[in-house]
């Protein structure tokens, strides 16, 4: 398996829904699959959740120990220090090892660490990415929180260094194509959204009502981008009355574009749009069988609008 640059366009057909798709992730079967990269927001949220959960755990444990009087006071401070250490790097390493790339926070958010070389996630990868998490996230955070905000020259220099450092580690994953932070680069890992497979109904199965029919010239105008946009509009689950008005607008626009009588649409635009969707898809798919992929309305055979 390998990643290639964007050069070959045939791999995954771009469609309206794909935004943050990992390009050309090719399993041994040779069929590229499109993983969705986790957004930095989701990852940040997962870390915050982890922080809250772990410190809540420490707090409850300390309260319980103190309440039961199990340890003398001096040992209690040592216990806090030790626990604080263990919910740092060790917690992330152990949880990602146990749950195969997911901490508690990642489980809640629904994201997952995978190895970029498409093999099983190795222990050294988990250790590497979490050791650097300390430098990229916890250390700047801790320093900013404990900063001694006095304005001596020394502290200004230190503050400038901290600022540059924080900016560097913050900008790096934003600029990175695969949203890898430094730790991910060293470890060779990616964070993806855990795929959820939901099969929606096939719109082309609904019975054509109202006897709409389209001739070939009318079906040669749009491409698959428009078709799939129409599909998304028809699936829109919003029940608001505005949606019906939108549908009517879309139907009118299509009718105008393909020279279809606007009066023939009728009061409810849905049957017209369904019929058009079905016929348009049939037409485009038959062209596809002959090796012609019409990406959008700017394809070669498109009739020019008058």
């Amino acid at each position: 398996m390998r990643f290639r640059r964007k050069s070959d366009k045939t791999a995954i057909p771009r469609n309206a829904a794909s935004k943050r798709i990992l390009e050309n992730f090719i399993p041994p079967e040779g069929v590229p699959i499109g993983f969705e990269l986790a957004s930095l927001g989701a990852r940040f949220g997962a870390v915050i959740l982890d922080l809250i959960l772990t410190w809540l755990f420490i707090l409850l444990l300390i309260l319980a120990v103190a309440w039961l009087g199990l340890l003398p006071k001096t040992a209690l401070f040592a216990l806090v220090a030790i626990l604080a250490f263990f919910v740092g790097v060790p917690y992330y390493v152990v949880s990602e090892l146990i749950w195969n790339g997911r901490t508690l926070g990642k489980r809640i958010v629904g994201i997952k660490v995978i190895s970029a070389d498409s093999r099983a996630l190795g222990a050294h990868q988990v250790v590497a990415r979490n050791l650097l998490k300390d430098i990229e996230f916890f250390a700047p955070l801790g320093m900013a929180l404990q900063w001694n905000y006095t304005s001596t020259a020394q502290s200004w220099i230190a503050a400038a260094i901290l600022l540059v450092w924080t900016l560097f580690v913050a900008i790096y994953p934003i600029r990175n194509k695969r949203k890898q932070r430094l730790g991910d680069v060293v470890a060779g890992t990616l964070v993806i959204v855990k795929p959820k497979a939901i099969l929606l109904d096939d719109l082309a199965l609904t019975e054509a009502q109202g006897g709409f029919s389209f001739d070939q010239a009318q079906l040669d105008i749009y491409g698959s981008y428009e078709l799939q946009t129409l599909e998304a509009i028809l699936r829109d689950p919003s029940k608001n009355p505005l949606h019906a008005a939108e549908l009517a607008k879309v139907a009118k626009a299509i009718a105008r574009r393909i020279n279809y009588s606007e009066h023939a649409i009728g009061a409810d635009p849905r049957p017209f749009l369904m019929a058009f969707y079905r016929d348009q898809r049939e037409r485009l798919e038959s062209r596809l069988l002959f090796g012609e992929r019409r990406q959008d309305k700017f394809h070669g055979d498109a009739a020019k609008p008058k």
Partner: protein
Amino acid sequence: MNDQVSPSRIEAELLRSARFRKLREPGWRRLEVLVKQAETHGTAGLNYTEAKELAAQYRQAMTSLALARDISLDLALLNYLDQLCARAWLVVYVPQRSLSGAFGRLLRQGIPQAVRRSLLPLLIGFSAMLLGAITGFVLFFRDRSWFYTFVPGGLSDGRAPGASVGYLRDTLYGDASLHSSDVLTAFAAYLFSHNTNIAIFIFGLGIFWALPSFVLTFYNGLMLGAFFALFVQAGLGYDAFAWLSIHGVTEISAICIACAGGARLGLAGLMPGQMSRKDSLRLHGRDAVKLFLLAGLMLLVAGVVEGVLRQTVTSPELRLLIGWGLGGFWLLWLWRSGRTGGAKV
């Protein structure tokens, strides 16, 4: 939504892509069930036929995906197959890796081999500490006030220029109050977590072209040198050396090794050679992590020694013996372990 339509009419009117979908959907649904099962109980939870079925259905789904991309424009179908295949791929090709035996392998081969491959970074790490220590030592004898620059107030604990020889001797041999075993254990654990945090810091900062690791280790060396010089001046050089040795041989080496791990990362980014920076970082990251794990292990041992033995063993000779004996043990292990047959020359 399609129960209002008579089936026979559908068959006749069905688009090619819709027929394709109708025909294969049961297989995909079965795969969904299998994947779900494997996700919750692990692939080990599947029995023989189920595992076989999972592999077969996964390949079929992959074929379906390839086909669908060529014949269908149904976005719902394409997205579903994409996601289903991705999920199944995670189950089939990215299983939970077994960790049994990994630790033993790491100790027998992984770490010693990584250390032997990292001589230049190790040189950087140890020389940073050594240069720091020498500088701190020399500067202290030039002008004692350097001590206050190097050693933060909280750490010195009254051990500063001008403290009486008696007090300094007490810090090396005294502190009977700490002798209950509970407190010693807590102290050891505290030392371990504190030192490991420093080591993580030194290691991770190495990614910034190794410079911060070097500076931090050098600074640790400065403190060490100034401290030692303080005791030498009070005529307690031998005792302080013994006091430092019992845990320091291990602990200070661990810090140097963490620095070496950081240097390994930094050098990988700085001088990637023929590789891209990313590839170089990933390649050298493996050894760097092993160096760090070694540092963590040594800090664990040092924490126990420092927390327990240093308080209970008070003879300088015995302290020297334990400290340097331990050092010799590390050296022997790292030098000899994990050599394969062909390595002998």
